[in-house]
């Protein structure tokens, strides 16, 4: 695939990310200077005025570079990606979070890895050397590691970071995989990568760092653990 003719559609689902969306757009433009890309903001009717900020950003960077494709209310991540995909004109699609836990400075490494290996999917992993997490206490790291070991043992997924959502897909591959996924939340991210792995798509990983500024406010409770276990069993049985 000729590097010069690739276009990258970056889908960013947002809900109340009035400040972060501006920061993320600035950083994407900073780190992807010589790349043909577009940013597709899928906002779920944020009450904090996120869409107004996106419109200001459009004036600054151009409406052909920043697409605002909102929805009426909070409808979930999977459908946000599907919605964004409909408007994507690139041959590659990047999905990333809007809260700055995913730093745009890694975008060039995703692109480079894909060009080097011809992979269908490049997924960011926090759990290898060169990657990492900041903002997690010991308990959180323990549950993360325990969950990962369990998932590796039960699912043999072929990737080191299953719940990560910073990924680059060939557009056709994303369309294929997303059509067969039904889960919600982070199990959805797991389902995507496991289904892709089962379908035999070439998946590569790049290390990323993850700065969690939100963790302190959201606790990882018993119900999350139950949901996770249910998700693992579901994936064991259906993939």
């Amino acid at each position: 695939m000729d590097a010069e003719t690739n276009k990258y559609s970056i889908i960013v689902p947002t809900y109340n990310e009035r400040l972060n969306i501006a920061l993320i757009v600035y950083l994407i433009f900073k780190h992807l200077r010589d790349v043909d890309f577009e940013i597709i903001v899928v906002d779920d009717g944020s009450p904090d005025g996120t869409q107004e900020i996106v419109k200001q950003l459009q004036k600054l960077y151009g409406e052909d570079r920043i697409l605002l494709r909102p929805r009426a209310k909070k409808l979930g991540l999977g459908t946000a990606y599907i919605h964004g995909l409909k408007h994507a004109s690139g041959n590659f699609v990047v999905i990333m979070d809007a809260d700055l836990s995913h730093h745009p400075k890694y975008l060039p490494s995703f692109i480079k890895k894909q060009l080097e290996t011809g992979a269908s999917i490049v997924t960011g992993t926090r759990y290898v050397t060169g990657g990492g997490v900041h903002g997690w206490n010991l308990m959180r790291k323990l549950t993360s590691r325990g969950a990962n070991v369990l998932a590796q043992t039960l699912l043999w997924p072929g990737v080191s970071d299953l719940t990560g959502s910073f990924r680059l897909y060939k557009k056709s591959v994303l369309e294929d995989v997303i059509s067969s996924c039904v889960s919600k939340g982070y199990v959805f991210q797991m389902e995507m990568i496991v289904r892709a792995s089962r379908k035999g798509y070439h998946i590569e990983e790049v290390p990323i760092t993850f700065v969690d500024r939100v963790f302190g406010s959201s606790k990882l409770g018993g119900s999350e653990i139950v949901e996770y276990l249910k998700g693992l069993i579901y994936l064991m049985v259906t993939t």
Partner: protein
Amino acid sequence: MKHVLKLFSLLVVISALWIGLLQASIIPQSHTWLLPIYFIVSLGCYGLLMVGVGLMRFPTCPQEALLLQQDIAEAKDFLKQKGVDVGSD
């Protein structure tokens, strides 16, 4: 093949080997009967070991928080100049 079936077939193969060992009596029967327990316990220990080792070697990046703060400041400056509203939310 669904993954759970793959795991199940693996279990069937291991069980067949175990029954074979029971019947061939290469190892004394009393030991052979305990093999499944040894196996499960080893698996459990291996899992705990992997969790422990992974936890010790968990990659952290404290400098990234600082770099992020710098990036945020840089972004806010630029955007404020260009008329984008970056007042704190």
